[in-house]
C-alpha cells in the first residue's frame, strides 16, 4: 500500500486510472465526478458512452495525474489501477477485474470476505478491499446509495485525494444536511474498510493496454459482413443486439405468470418491449403462452397493467438489484 506522499511522487509523471462499476441510478458517475473534483491535479471522468437505464450495469472511468499533458488524452481507460464495485450483484454478471493491473486494487461493496472475493473474480495478483457499504448507507444516509461511501474505501487503500478535499467537493455538489451525512458516512467507511494487501503495488509506468483491444478483435471483419447494416435472422455471424443483454438483472420485480388464469389473449405479448413473453404453437394450431423469460424481463410491468384477467403479478426481487430505486 502506498502512502499519500508516495502517490504524489507517482502522480507527477504517471497517470492513475480508476473504474467504477454500478447500476443505473446508484450514482457511479457521480462518484467518479467527485474523484475529479477532489483531486488536486488534473483529472478527467468519462461515463461509458451510450444509453444508461435504471438498474442496468454502468461503468465510469477516471484518469488523474499532476501532469496535464498526460490526462489531456480523451482515450477510454483500458488498464485501471483501482476498480470500485458499488453493487455486489455485479460480481457474478460482469468481469469487474478486466484490465486491472497486477497489484491493483479491487474495492467491493460486499459482506463477503477477501478470500471469497478472490475466488469469485478468479484473480490472486490483486489487492482487495471490502466494505459493507450498503449497511453504512442504510445506517447513516437512511437509503441505499453507496457511491460516496465507496470513495472512503479508495481513500483508505490509495489516498490520491484527502478526505478534506472530498468533503469540499461533496459540499459543493449536495445540499447542507445531505452533504454532512455523506461525509460522516465516508469517514465511517474509511474506518471499516477491510484490507487484503498482497504486498505488491501496481507498476504505474507500464502501459498494460492490450494492443488493438479497442477494435474488438474476434468479431466479424468488414470482409465477413454479408450486407452492411443488415442482419439477417438466420445469420449467427453478428453477436450483438439486445438478445444478448441480460436486461432481466435491471429490474426491481420478478413477474409471475398464473397459467390457470391466463386466457392466451396475447395482449402482454404485443406490449412487451423485450419479447420476454414466451409463446408456443400448440397442437391445436394456436399460440399459447408458456411463461416469462426472466433473462430479458426488466419488470417494466406493462404486461401486468394490460392483462385483463390478472394472470400476471409481481414480487419484489431479493438481493441487491432491488436497491436501484429511483432518486427522488
Amino acid at each position, binding site marked *: 500500500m502506498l502512502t499519500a506522499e508516495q502517490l504524489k511522487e507517482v502522480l507527477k509523471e504517471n497517470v492513475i486510472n480508476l473504474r467504477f462499476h454500478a447500476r443505473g441510478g446508484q450514482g457511479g458517475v457521480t462518484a467518479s465526478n467527485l474523484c475529479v473534483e477532489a483531486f488536486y491535479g488534473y483529472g478527467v*471522468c*468519462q461515463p461509458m*458512452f451510450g444509453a444508461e437505464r435504471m438498474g442496468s450495469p454502468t461503468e465510469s472511468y477516471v484518469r488523474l495525474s499532476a501532469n496535464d*499533458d498526460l490526462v489531456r*488524452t480523451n482515450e477510454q481507460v*483500458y488498464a485501471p489501477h483501482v476498480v470500485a464495485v458499488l453493487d455486489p450483484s455485479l460480481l457474478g454478471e460482469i468481469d469487474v477485474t478486466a484490465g486491472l493491473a497486477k497489484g491493483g486494487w479491487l474495492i467491493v461493496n460486499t459482506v463477503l470476505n477477501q478470500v471469497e472475493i478472490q475466488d469469485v473474480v478468479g484473480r490472486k495478483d490483486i489487492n482487495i478491499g471490502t466494505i459493507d457499504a450498503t449497511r453504512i448507507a442504510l445506517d447513516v444516509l437512511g437509503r441505499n446509495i453507496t457511491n460516496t461511501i465507496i470513495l472512503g474505501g479508495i481513500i483508505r487503500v490509495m489516498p490520491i485525494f484527502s478526505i478534506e478535499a472530498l468533503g469540499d467537493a461533496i459540499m459543493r455538489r449536495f445540499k447542507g444536511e445531505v452533504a454532512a451525512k455523506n461525509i460522516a458516512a465516508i469517514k465511517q467507511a474509511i474506518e471499516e474498510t477491510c484490507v487484503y494487501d498482497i504486498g505488491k503495488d501496481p507498476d504505474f509506468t507500464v502501459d498494460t493496454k492490450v494492443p488493438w483491444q479497442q*477494435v474488438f478483435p474476434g468479431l466479424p471483419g468488414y470482409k465477413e459482413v454479408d450486407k452492411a447494416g443488415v442482419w439477417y435472422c438466420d445469420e449467427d455471424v453478428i453477436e450483438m443486439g439486445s438478445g444478448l443483454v441480460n436486461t432481466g438483472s435491471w429490474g426491481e420485480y420478478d413477474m409471475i405468470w398464473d397459467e390457470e388464469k391466463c386466457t392466451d389473449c396475447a395482449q402482454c405479448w404485443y406490449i412487451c418491449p423485450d419479447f420476454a413473453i414466451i409463446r408456443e404453437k400448440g397442437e391445436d394450431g394456436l399460440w399459447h403462452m408458456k411463461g416469462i423469460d426472466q433473462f430479458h424481463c426488466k419488470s417494466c410491468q406493462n404486461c401486468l397493467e394490460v392483462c385483463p384477467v390478472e394472470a400476471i403479478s409481481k414480487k419484489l426481487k431479493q438481493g441487491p438489484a432491488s436497491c436501484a430505486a429511483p432518486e427522488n
Partner: protein
Amino acid sequence: MSIEPMKIFFKEIKEPVTTTMIGNYAVAGGVTQTDPDVICAFPITPQTQSVEGLSDVVHQGRLKAAFVNVESELAAISFSTASCAAGARSFTATASQGYLLMTEGLPMAVGWRLPLTMMISARAFNSPNLSIWNAWEFTETNSEMGWNCIVSENVQETYDAAILSVMISEDSLFPTMFVHDGFIISHSVQKLTLIPDETVLKMTPKKPRDTIDPSNPGTWGGIVTPSYFMEGRKNLDEAKKPVLSQMREVFKTFRKETGRDYNLIETYNLDNSSKIAFCTMGSMCGNIISWMTKNKDIGLIKVRAYRPFPYEELRKIIEEHNIEKLIILEKSDSLNAMLPPFSMSIASALYPLGTLFRSFIVGLGGRDVTRDEFDIAKKKIVSVTDMKGELYQYLGVRETKQKIYGVD
C-alpha cells in the same frame, strides 16, 4: 439528493472560478453568459444537455430569454434564423440527423448575414447503421454553405467556443457553428475555468446591425431572376474574405481578457527531428498530445478554424517549420472522392507546396482512437516517398475475425 448541474450559473459569476462539468453543460453555461434572447433547439443525443441546461437557467429566472420548444430541427433552424433576423441574439444546437434536417434552413442564415450561433455535438450519420456515437458529420455535408465553423478539443475549449462564436458571429455577421466530439467531450467531466459575467458581456456587446424593422420595411430573400442572383453571391463572397482576420482579432481580444491563447491553427513540437507532423482537429488532438510525451520526434498541427479554412496560415506553418510529411487523421470518410473531406481541405492548401501526406480515417461511430493508431500511422508515413496510389486508409477496423486491416 437533487443535483443541479447548472447551479453555478444561477448566480452572477464575479471572478474566474474553476469547476468540473460535462461539455454540454459547460456550453449551456457559456451561452447563458452571452445573454441570448432566443434559444430554440430540438433535442438529439449527444447534444441534449446543452439545451436542457439552458432551459434550467431560463426557468430559474437567471436568463431572460425566450426558450422556444419546436417540433423538429427544421423548425428550430427556421425559428432561430427568423428571430435572429428580427434582431434577437439566437442560439440553437443539434447533431447528426438533426443537422441534416436543418439543411434547408442553413443557407439563408448566411445569405441574410445573421450572427446566429449553433452548437454541434459531432455524431455519425446513420449509414449503414444507426449510431449515436462520434464521427465528424459536419465535415461531410453543408460545410460550403458559408457558416463559420470552429472545433474544440476539450471541455474548456468548448465552453470558450460558446463565447468566441458569439464574438465571431457578431463581428463577421456570418452564422457560426462550434463543434465538439459527441460523447467524448459532450459527456466527459473535465475541469474548466469560467469567465466572469462582466468580462463575457464586455466581449460580446450587442451591436446595431441590419434587422427586420417595421419602420424600414423590405423584402428579405424574395425571388430574383438570373439577372441579379450572381451579384448577391459575389457580394457574400467578398464579405467572407475578412472573416479569418476577424477571427484572429477575436482570439486576440479573448486572450487579453482571459489569458487563454487560441489561434486559427495551433502547433505543437513542429521543430522536431523527423520533420513529420500529425494534422487533425477536435478531441483527438488531446490523445496525440498525451502520446507525444513519449514520442518527441513528431509534431502536431491542430486546426481550430475549419470554416473558413485557413489555407494561407497552414502553408505558412508548413514552410516555416520545413515540415516534409503530414499524417492527416480524420473521423469522416468519403465514399466517392479521392480524399475524405477534411483531408481535401488540407490537400488544397498543400498543393503549391507539394508536401507529402497520407490520410487516415479513424474513430467512426465512436470507435476509440488510441496510441495503436498513432504508432502505426507514424510507421506507415516513413515509407511514403510520393503521392501515388491510394492516398487514404482506414485504421482501426477489422478485416476479418483474426486480422486488423492494415496491421501486420
